[in-house]
């Protein structure tokens, strides 16, 4: 195995690589670049919200069309081109083979193809800014008929309709979903078939379980959306009328297809991050994960419930009022497994011997922020209060309080935790603390006050509130300005991270094999792990969380240790 992979050219080693760690890195770097793009878009429209009509530094004047496009693509990027590649693909690729004690993915070439399709999808997305008319500006939900007017507007020029911002966005999303689907299949097959000897299902670390459950949710829900997306594309370029009532269609069909995927997608993003916490919290508490099996059963339950809640995005869309109660109950029920998972993490802390190292700091910050996001979900899950709060800044603040900790705190926790393993270098802990505290404080500065803007009736996706007497008054405009200043601070804080990443990678102190004293298999390999990961291959003798076993002398017993004494 080892010999096969030596003497590779630069191209086959770093670009068209089939090594799961390299592909994981590619996904991570790509996600970070796209996060930069998404962050820049957010900076531009947030600046506009705080100082409407002013020229924006590093951009210029922002018109209403560009504003709409920026808001739309910001959302798209952060969900599909940051959250998905970083949490699902990067973590899945890095961790699945090495944590189950295998050399690589089941289908390394499919894995490579998955990344390159993803890269093309990102290019198609960026390209949509530069076609005539600019990028699509109808919200990331792409509700037709607004998103289905290509054929009418460009009639009958097929190519103009195809190379419009709307069509390119649909294509980019479809390609991205294809890439993720290939990755997801790979994850499942790898986990099922390539486990090390003794790695029985109930010994698999929670993060591997969760990434696989996320992949299953994704596969169950993505089919209708891809079909729906192609129908939307046909509406745009071929003049079909699936969603346009003037041509016999119904826009509500898209709302159902979109949210049937769109809501489970939230859990696809959430589960890998929760898996990260499940690895970090026990290690830094020196205690087994509280109720390991129950946590996995709860995640399976949430996977089942995740396809029963989608219409809570449509409470005011004109669905049958009796139907709303059903989805309200579904929404209530799905809060239970996730509350259970978080409570298990919190219970793991009790009675531990807690080391507040950097990964733990991010994990605790994640739980704290998600608490706000989860509990504000109570207001929105109530269909009656949603009549008022729907499409206001209350919703905006709510989902940023869930998705920001999920995507960014989850990623940073994972990054600070596994960086020594995959690079063989240590990060600068002091810079890491600055990075954490600035990110934590600025994030709250951006979104906490916006809850109040939402309750005051401020609706979303408006580039200029001067027409609305309820909003264009104090203190709400000041809140917008505080949010913008904090957003700029939040983005600048990430340069600390980049600096730390680059300098530690180049000149950091050499990391030891198992710096956090963890039990899972990746820490039993070298840092960084060689191509093929293990030599010899490990045999698993115990569960993933044997910390502080009473009969053991050390307070951690790695999975490949046969006998404690």
């Amino acid at each position, binding site marked *: 195995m080892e010999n096969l992979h030596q003497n590779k050219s630069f191209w086959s080693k770093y670009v068209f690589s089939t090594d799961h760690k390299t592909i994981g890195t590619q996904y991570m770097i790509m996600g970070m670049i796209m996060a930069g793009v998404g962050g820049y878009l957010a900076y531009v429209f947030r600046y506009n919200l705080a100082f409407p009509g002013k020229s924006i530094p590093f951009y210029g004047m922002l018109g*209403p*069309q560009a504003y*709409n496009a920026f808001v739309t693509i910001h959302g798209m990027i952060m969900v599909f081109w940051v959250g998905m590649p970083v949490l699902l693909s990067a973590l899945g690729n890095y961790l699945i083979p090495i944590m189950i004690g295998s050399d690589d993915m089941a289908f390394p070439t499919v894995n490579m193809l998955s990344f390159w399709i993803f890269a093309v999808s990102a290019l198609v997305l960026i390209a949509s800014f530069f076609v005539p008319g600019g990028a699509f*500006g*109808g919200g990331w939900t792409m*509700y037709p*008929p*607004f998103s289905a*007017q290509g054929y009418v507007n460009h009639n009958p020029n097929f190519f103009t309709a195809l190379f419009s911002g709307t069509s390119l966005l649909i294509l980019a999303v479809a390609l991205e979903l294809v890439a993720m689907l290939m990755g997801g299949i790979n994850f499942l097959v790898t986990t099922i078939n390539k486990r090390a000897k003794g790695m029985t299902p109930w010994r698999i670390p929670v993060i591997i379980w969760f990434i696989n459950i996320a992949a299953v949710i994704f596969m169950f829900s993505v089919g209708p959306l891809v079909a729906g997306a192609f129908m939307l594309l046909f509406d745009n370029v071929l003049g079909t009328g699936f969603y346009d*009532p*003037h041509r016999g269609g119904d*826009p*509500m069909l898209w709302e159902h297809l979109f949210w049937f995927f769109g809501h489970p997608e939230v859990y696809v993003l959430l589960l890998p991050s929760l898996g990260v916490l499940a690895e970090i919290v026990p290690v830094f508490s*020196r*205690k*087994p994960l*509280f*109720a*390991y*099996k*129950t946590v996995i059963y709860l995640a399976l339950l949430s996977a089942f419930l995740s396809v029963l809640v989608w219409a809570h995005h449509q409470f*005011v*869309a*004109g669905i049958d*009022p009796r139907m709303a109660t059903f989805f309200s109950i579904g929404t*209530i029920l799905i*809060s*239970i497994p996730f*509350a259970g998972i978080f*409570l*298990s993490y*919190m*219970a*793991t*802390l*009790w009675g*531990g*011997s807690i080391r507040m190292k950097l990964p733990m700091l991010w994990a*605790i910050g994640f739980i*704290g922020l998600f*608490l*706000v996001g989860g*509990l504000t979900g109570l*207001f929105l899950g*109530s269909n*009656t*209060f949603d*009549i*008022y709060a*729907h*499409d206001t800044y209350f919703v905006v603040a709510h989902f940023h309080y869930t998705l920001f900790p999920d995507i960014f705190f989850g990623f940073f926790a994972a990054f600070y935790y596994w960086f020594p393993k995959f690079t063989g270098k240590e990060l600068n802990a002091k810079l890491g603390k600055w990075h954490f505290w600035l990110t934590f404080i600025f994030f709250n500065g951006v979104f906490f006050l916006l809850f109040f803007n939402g*309750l005051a*009736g401020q*609706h*979303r*996706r*408006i580039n200029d509130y001067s027409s609305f007497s*309820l909003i264009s008054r104090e*203190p709400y405009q000041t809140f917008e300005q505080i949010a913008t200043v904090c957003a700029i601070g939040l983005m600048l804080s990430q340069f600390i991270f980049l600096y730390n990443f680059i300098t530690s990678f180049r000149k950091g102190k050499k990391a030891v094999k198992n710096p956090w004293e963890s039990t899972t298999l990746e820490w039993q390999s070298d840092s960084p792990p060689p191509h093929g990961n293990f030599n010899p291959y490990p045999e698993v003798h115990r569960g993933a969380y044997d910390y502080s076993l*009473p009969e053991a002398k050390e307070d951690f017993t790695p999975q490949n240790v046969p006998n404690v004494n």
Partner: protein
Amino acid sequence: MTIFPENVSTYGQEIDNLFWLILVFAAIAFFISLFVLLYPLIKYSSKNGKRAEYITGEKRKHYKWITYALVALLLSDFVILYVEHDTWGNIESVPAISKNDVHVGIIARQWNWIFVYPGPDGVLGTRDDVVIDSMNSSLHVPINANVIFELRSTDVIHSFFLANARLKQDALPGRTVMRWFNITKPGKYDISCTQICGILHSKMRNYVLAETPEQYKHFTDSLYNANKVVTSSK
């Protein structure tokens, strides 16, 4: 500074009350959870030098606390659901039209709200309907009367949001949705569109002008006199 804009509708107070009820539950859950999260960071810090206890969480005496918490969460959720249920039915189902009610049509179009008044016969959808399609014309309604409206859209999805009445409803092309409100205080209230609908989405604003019954009668009389030439909305 108040949290919500002034409530002027009959059912708005119920929505505000629901907010405070959920806030009580959420605040209790928040502070308890925060304690459970942060207290062990001090109490069980490794700096105390004590070895961690080996607790797998599979014994009843350990996991019972999580069970209690989840049951409490589920119960408070269902209390919320029970309390809100009547309000939901009240807002979402349209009362039968009686003589004192006003029946109007609201049509959303990129980028304004078009109002349809029923004409002298008081019935919408007849030949004497009056269509007002102007950026400068608000929706006149009498106070203390049920205003029942048929909401439609001619082009893309819009959403009718009357924050002071706590009412929001999407307008989907191809559908007619019936909703109602009853405003109790004269005044001029923002109507905004809350579903992104294109380049002038930010300018898609109009007003509901709530008037005393006398003022309203005066308005409709002059409107119908000016429209002696019969217009049709259909």
